[in-house]
């Protein structure tokens, strides 16, 4: 749903300008997830279910804390638990709240063929408008983080909205509101980046020399950022990609190939048209018919 107070910066499969008069005076927003403060309580998952009216199926225990085991159309955020043995032999429990990263350059939006099914608001939030979704799954193909899920019920794509409906009326996302340790914070991207620097300085003083902010440049930065103790090895955190970017295959398919192939097809039709206009039809004359007759009768 379009939100009155949020203008749209980018709209899927749309070449005309999007409404862009209103600009958020505070700039882009961001959610900052401080992995070092997370205790894995899953309150954020519950808050997400509550606010968005989502109820996943009760699954089965597969022997790990991850529950549910993966993102689904009903679970837009999932805590992923990773056990990491440091070179010093210590065990670290790295818990990452997984979900949509709200890329500044969203691969899902780039891949989406349906006008307006995916939008990016002026504040940076990437939102799916399911009423326009045709269920093709191209967003899944475009996403560098493996986030969108297609519903088996309505064949439409779902993911975290960053509570765009709450943000539009000046509230923080539900997961942020509920987090008991303050591991999830929300604000302008600028303030969140500054705040992260203070957290990183603190972590470095506690011996985490490689602490850092995860705001990957390959997708233009993200509107969900992580503070990581081991920012040099993001893959430790249940496979968080080190240098995510829109796949070159998707860039080719939904980028340069589009105008080039359209132009080539139009050219083929135009060449045909003008060839006809210049050369005229290849007709069979009466003479051809007579020659054919003659050839047979002379045989």
């Amino acid at each position, binding site marked *: 749903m379009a939100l009155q107070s949020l203008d749209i910066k980018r709209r899927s499969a749309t070449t005309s300008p999007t409404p862009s008069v209103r600009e958020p005076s505070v700039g882009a927003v961001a959610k900052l997830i401080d992995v070092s403060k997370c205790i894995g309580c899953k309150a954020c998952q519950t808050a997400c279910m509550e606010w968005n009216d989502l109820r996943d199926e009760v699954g089965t225990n597969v022997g790990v804390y991850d529950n549910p085991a993966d993102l689904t159309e009903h679970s837009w955020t999932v805590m992923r638990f990773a056990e990491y043995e440091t070179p010093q032999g210590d065990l670290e429990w790295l818990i990452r709240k997984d979900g949509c990263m709200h890329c500044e350059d969203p691969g899902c939006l780039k891949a989406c063929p*349906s006008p307006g099914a995916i939008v990016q608001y002026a504040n940076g939030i990437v939102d799916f408008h399911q009423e*326009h979704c*045709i269920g093709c*799954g191209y967003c899944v193909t475009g996403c560098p983080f493996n986030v969108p899920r297609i519903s088996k019920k309505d064949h439409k794509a779902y993911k975290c909205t960053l509570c765009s409906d709450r943000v539009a009326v000046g509230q923080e996302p539900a997961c942020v509101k509920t987090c008991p340790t303050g591991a999830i914070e929300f604000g302008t991207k600028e303030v969140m980046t500054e705040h992260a620097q203070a957290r990183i300085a603190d972590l470095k003083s506690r011996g985490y020399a490689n602490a850092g902010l995860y705001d990957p440049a390959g997708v233009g930065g993200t509107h969900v950022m992580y503070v990581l103790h081991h920012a040099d090895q993001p893959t430790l955190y249940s496979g968080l990609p080190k240098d995510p970017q829109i796949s070159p295959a998707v860039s080719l398919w939904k980028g340069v190939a589009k105008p080039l192939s359209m132009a080539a097809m139009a050219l083929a039709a135009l060449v045909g048209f003008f060839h006809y206009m210049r050369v005229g039809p*290849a007709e*069979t004359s009466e003479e051809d018919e007579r020659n054919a007759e003659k050839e047979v009768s002379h045989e």
Partner: protein
Amino acid sequence: MSETARPRTLPRYSASERSNHWVVAITFILLALSGLAFYHPAFFFLSHLLGGGYWARVLHPYIGVVFFVCFALLALRLARHNAWEAKDAQWLKQFPDVLANREERLPEVGRYNALQKLLFYVLVLSAVGLFLSGIGLWREWFAFSVGTVRLAAVVHALCAFVAITSIIVHIYAAIWVKGSVRAMTRGDVTWGWAWRHHRAWFRQMVKGANK
């Protein structure tokens, strides 16, 4: 033959071949239009031909299966006429003569000319590419890794581009060379048409006709 009599004709496609061709043609047009809708925003409105984006997404792959099966049948039927010959290369070398309608300078053509044969090969390859990559993209029934699906998307778009461009050439050739369309609508061509455009085939067909 008296001057007023209608030209004599030669059979070119049987009723069964014609039906096969038109099922392929109709499904191809539906696939191309709905496929272009998913490919470029400028063509999204074409998805309404199949009942909107959602229905176009649902129906496109099923139509694709019908297309591929019928195309395979047609290709098998016509394959034996498409063997490449030395004179085909010579014909292609003289392509400016083809375009300028100077057929008398060209080597005699059999049932199909070199461009028709090339079209046959290109369409066979792109149809196979479209079918295989289409399976990769068909989330309703298949689930492949994201890397495979990305590759499938590129291959599908590339093959579709090649196929659509080839069909533009195919349709234009049918419009340009008068007397060709009746081969696919009525099944026959006039002697004069065959003599002018496919003389070797003409001779083969009329051999012994007057004996």
